[in-house]
């Protein structure tokens, strides 16, 4: 009896709300807009992930960190220490946001999370590495150096070509008796001194114009090298593009 009374009152309460006009059916447009906004949010987050991963890759290669594991355990140690963990964490958070947004689509939640998560990570990594090979970041970096990039400029100046104590990246300007001089991408002339323990994992023949990564201890403008590696990456635009954009005259 009490139950019937309750049932009646619920039905009556709801119908009363409807009849009074206090609640109204939402228009179809409202739901279409919600779906569109969700899709836009998903693609924006996706674009941001692609940008971030390609930027991390650009930062690692342009600074020379990418090549450090080739120098063995010591190289690995410095590699792990210099990795841009903050950017990597931001990338992981964005991937998580993407997964949460994707789970609102039925074709995603019908399958185990591992599939969508792996698909997002794979697309982000492949897409990020493809973008890194285009002139996109080197172009933005050049603009940042010329002060033409107001918002992202500081980020590019900080991460694009950071100054590290343990790793230097540049072009051989002059071969000297016990080493060579390199011009770094941020316009510093450094003397690289070879020692007995210096490793050459990819050959020890260097000449003027070679693109090199040097791992070693820096003191003022001299680097005592623990490892030197020649970089021959003709596919990357910034190798060609950054040098002419540098605000110093080309080497003699």
């Amino acid at each position, binding site marked *: 009896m009490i139950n019937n009374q*309750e*049932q009646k*009152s*619920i*039905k009556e*309460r*709801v*119908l009363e*709300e*409807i009849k009074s006009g206090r*609640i*109204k*059916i*939402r*228009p*179809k447009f*409202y*739901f279409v807009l919600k779906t569109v906004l969700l899709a836009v949010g998903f693609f924006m987050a996706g674009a941001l992930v692609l940008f971030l991963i390609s930027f991390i890759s650009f930062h690692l290669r342009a600074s020379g960190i990418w090549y450090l594991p080739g120098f063995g355990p010591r190289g690995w140690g410095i590699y792990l220490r210099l990795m841009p963990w903050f950017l990597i964490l931001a990338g992981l958070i964005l991937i998580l946001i993407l997964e949460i947004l994707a*789970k609102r689509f039925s074709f995603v*939640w*019908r*399958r*185990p*999370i*591992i*599939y969508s998560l792996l698909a997002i990570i794979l697309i982000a990594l492949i897409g990020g590495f493809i973008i890194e090979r285009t002139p996109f970041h080197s172009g933005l970096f050049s603009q940042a150096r010329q002060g033409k990039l107001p918002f992202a400029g500081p980020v590019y100046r900080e991460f694009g070509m950071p100054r590290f104590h343990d790793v230097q990246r540049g072009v051989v300007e002059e071969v000297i008796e016990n080493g060579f001089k390199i011009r770094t991408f941020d316009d510093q002339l450094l003397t690289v001194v070879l020692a007995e323990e210096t490793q050459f994992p990819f050959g020890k023949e260097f000449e003027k114009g070679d693109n090199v990564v040097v791992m070693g201890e820096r003191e003022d403008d001299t680097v005592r090298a623990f490892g030197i590696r020649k970089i021959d990456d003709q596919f990357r635009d910034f190798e060609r593009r950054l040098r002419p954009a540098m605000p110093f005259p080309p080497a003699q």
Partner: protein
Amino acid sequence: MRDEFSRQKVDEELALLIQSGKIEFFDILLERYEEKIRRYSRKFLSDSEDINDVLQDIFIKAYKNIRSFDAKRKFSSWLYRLAHNELINALKKKKKNPLPLFDLDVFFPQHLSDNNSLGEQTERREMAELIGKCLDRLELKYREPVILYYFEELSYKDIAEVMRIPISTVGIRIKRAKEIMRTICKKLGYL
């Protein structure tokens, strides 16, 4: 006349009529589902006042959002999904332990060998006995698919729609629920 007309209509046809502006048909859906949703809500909440409040919210939301319902799908799954969300929110407000944020059985693919074996009569009889004695002691993630399958008689596919989890996970959770309930009932001396 209208009653005769509406009685012949399935839920999805009624929902389409309401979507087109014939809001007077909403009370038919209310009549059809009020008791079902009340029974479902009782498995989440115990206080009858709370249940009434949530019920009202569920049907008001159903009315407001009726145009988001896709008539190619089942109305019952759509309404239970709405009820699921409202009940989870009600539990969160009460700071009771609702569904976990992350669950391994939704993360990795699951293999369920025979989807229909649980539906056999003997299985159902055994489950009815277990449910009667030990259902309340189950975690919500196991309790809910059991309620939807054995009480509300939804299919695995419909339960997957309601809980937004893969169909295989529904089967796995019901299978595990049965094992857990059997263990609990044995410990309590009911079996």
